[in-house]
């Protein structure tokens, strides 16, 4: 959907690219015409954009086929890059999640699994690069349309992308006065302190105001390629970390705990907080975590 939000409504992209397969907009079907193949049919293309984590057998088959058919594979969005929020359900057993529903159809062909079934779930949610080779990872929830366009342009122009690995804080103009006055993280149950109609640069850093802002441990660039302000913070809301870790393989939960502890901020209440590992749960180290809640003190 983010593709449709490029400048001018994606008209500019159509001058440069031909879209061959996109289920949301086009009628190409996986099993051929008139639906007489067991093999997934996806046309060959220079670039394949895959969004979403790998959660079931069908998504895995599609991803594997895309890898075979496309010269360049882009993991589009934080779910594809890191598992995203859907990975959060990995902490639970199927019965807890689905209750009385069953996984897959009750009726099956005795010799083969019926293709009339819903797809079988895999053991957990996988990031795309845990299952296929990925050439470009573009995090974001969703990625800014500018960045999607830039990735596509880089492919056709055979140029590598040069996005510096910076944290959100590096692009945030909020005032820093030191975190010395913060000892505990506050819950975001009232608005941050800022002057109405004044720019963001006159608002004190949200972390310094005591809110759990994931800016220090989140990759910058959620506002696109034009150097825009971090979108959540511009709305005066703490960064929720949806752009993923600053470096691939980073652990936002551990990183934020380190960042807070190094500033003398009590982190024991964060053990049960969901936010720090909200978007990156697909990695084996974070899958299967169960929450431990402690009541915060105000």
């Amino acid at each position, binding site marked *: 959907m983010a593709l449709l939000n490029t400048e001018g409504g994606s008209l500019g992209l159509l001058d440069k690219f031909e879209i061959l397969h996109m289920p949301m*907009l086009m009628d190409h079907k996986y099993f051929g015409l*008139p639906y007489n193949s067991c093999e997934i049919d996806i046309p060959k293309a220079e670039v394949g954009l895959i969004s979403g984590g790998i959660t079931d057998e069908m998504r895995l088959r599609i991803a594997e086929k895309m890898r075979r058919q496309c010269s360049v594979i882009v993991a589009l969005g934080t779910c594809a890059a890191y598992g995203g929020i859907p990975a*959060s359900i990995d902490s639970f057993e199927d019965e807890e999640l689905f209750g009385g*529903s069953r996984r897959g159809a009750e009726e099956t062909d005795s010799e083969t699994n019926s*293709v009339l079934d*819903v797809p079988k779930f895999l053991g957990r949610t996988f990031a795309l690069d845990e299952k296929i080779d990925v050439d470009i990872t573009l995090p974001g929830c969703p990625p800014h349309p500018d960045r999607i366009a830039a990735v596509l342009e880089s492919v056709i122009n055979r140029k590598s992308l040069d996005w510096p690995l910076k944290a959100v804080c590096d692009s945030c103009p909020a005032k820093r006065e030191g975190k010395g006055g913060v000892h505990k993280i506050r819950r975001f149950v*009232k608005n941050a302190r800022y002057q109405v109609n004044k720019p963001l640069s006159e608002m004190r850093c949200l972390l310094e105001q005591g809110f759990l802002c994931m800016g220090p441990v989140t990759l910058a660039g959620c506002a696109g390629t034009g150097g825009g302000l971090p979108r959540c913070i511009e709305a005066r*809301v703490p960064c929720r970390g949806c752009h993923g870790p600053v470096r691939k393989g980073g652990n936002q939960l551990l990183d934020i705990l380190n960042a807070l502890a190094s500033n003398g901020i009590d982190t024991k209440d964060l053990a049960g907080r*969901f936010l720090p590992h909200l978007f990156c749960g697909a990695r084996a180290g974070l899958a299967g975590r169960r929450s431990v809640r402690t009541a915060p003190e105000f």
Partner: protein
Amino acid sequence: MLRQTEAARSPVFAKEIIIEPVTRIEGRAKIGITLDDTGSAARVRFHMTSMRGFEKFLVGRPAEEAPGILACISGVCPLQRHLAANQAVEGCFGTKVPPAGRLLRELSQVLAHIGSKTLHFFFLAGPDYLVDSNRYARNIFGIVGQDPELAKRVMQTRYRAQMMLEKLAGRCIQPDAIVPGGFSRPMSCLERDELYAGALEQLEFAGFAVEFAKERVFPRLETELMRLGDIESGFLAMVNTEDGSLSLSDGALRLMRPDGSFHEFWGREYSDFLGEHVEPWSYSKFHYAQGWGEGFSMDLDNPLGIYRTNSLARINVADCISTPLAQAEFVEFRSRFGRPAQSTMLYHRARLIELLHCCEKAVELLEDPRITADHVRNEAVPREGRGVGCVESPRGTLIHDYSTDKDGFITRANLIVGTSHNLAPINMSVTRAARDLIRNGEVTEQVLNRIEMAVRAYNP
């Protein structure tokens, strides 16, 4: 996939048909059709193939984090999830929203509907009626080739609607500016003026869209295609409690029977009237009107407990629409099609009436001087409680039901998404379409696309 089974008798045609994926919808789905020996559709199943199960992991979390989490679980109806979650948290905490906060939220809601409805009519469903039936051209790109000026206007207008929402709510997909107690920041007068100009443009476009559809789409849709996916059902939607007018954000739920009689209830009473049915072949649950006391059945000849939500439901259950241009269209709709109107294809006309209403509402909200007030949020004080948030999403009635403990952590959560109300009706509509269109095992690509059109009307 077409495949002969071991037990095939006189196998002169294939017995199983898969339509996968169902294309030109925002969700992920497939349709499986089994033919009998005469080549007619014996069994038809519509599956939503994405499964979320998010209620469980909300439990144990600080309730005020739920809106930010739920906004990000999908790109389909994110703002409405965000809004319903905030309402549920406010219900738990007993928090009231100040007037400016309510206005900003309502503006966010109608802007989100505008983008969604424009997307659906022109990008998703529209190609079925606007371009050649060739499947390679039957899409927005085909419209670009066939009528570039129309395509340009549609794409750019929708883009600008999305950017209006982005400016207001932080981002157009996965918003973050709606918070428990109100809105995260006030609107400046400059922002209001910019959005007002944009709202006027959207309103002009909505008027054009309605007239365009009356000329180019509805004549065919409401004649030769009128019976496509036809079923009989009740309807569920929100109405304004003062005058029974169509409401998208605030009001009571009205559950209407097929005969037009209805019952109203508050959102927090939903479980007294709406039940869940489980089928072994589906991850998703099927909601039905248990309050009618007749049980659940998707039998086309004797449906039980079946109701629909989304645009057609909202037009059917409402007594009127509060904005004048949409009200005029509403009156015409009612006089031509009665109440409740049952034809599945009328979802498209209903959706455009709503588009017109949302644009008028955006203008009206931006003309309200209170919308630029500084006080946009009251403090939400965590406490033990139960809250139910109800909003109308483009897909249907969205219900979020949370309970919290004394520290404001979620102890229980139940979510009903818009499309899940329509799962049983969609199954019935595709069954109807398949039975009507597939004869003697003759299955063409155009026939199968017609079956998908019965799904697209619901915009799942």
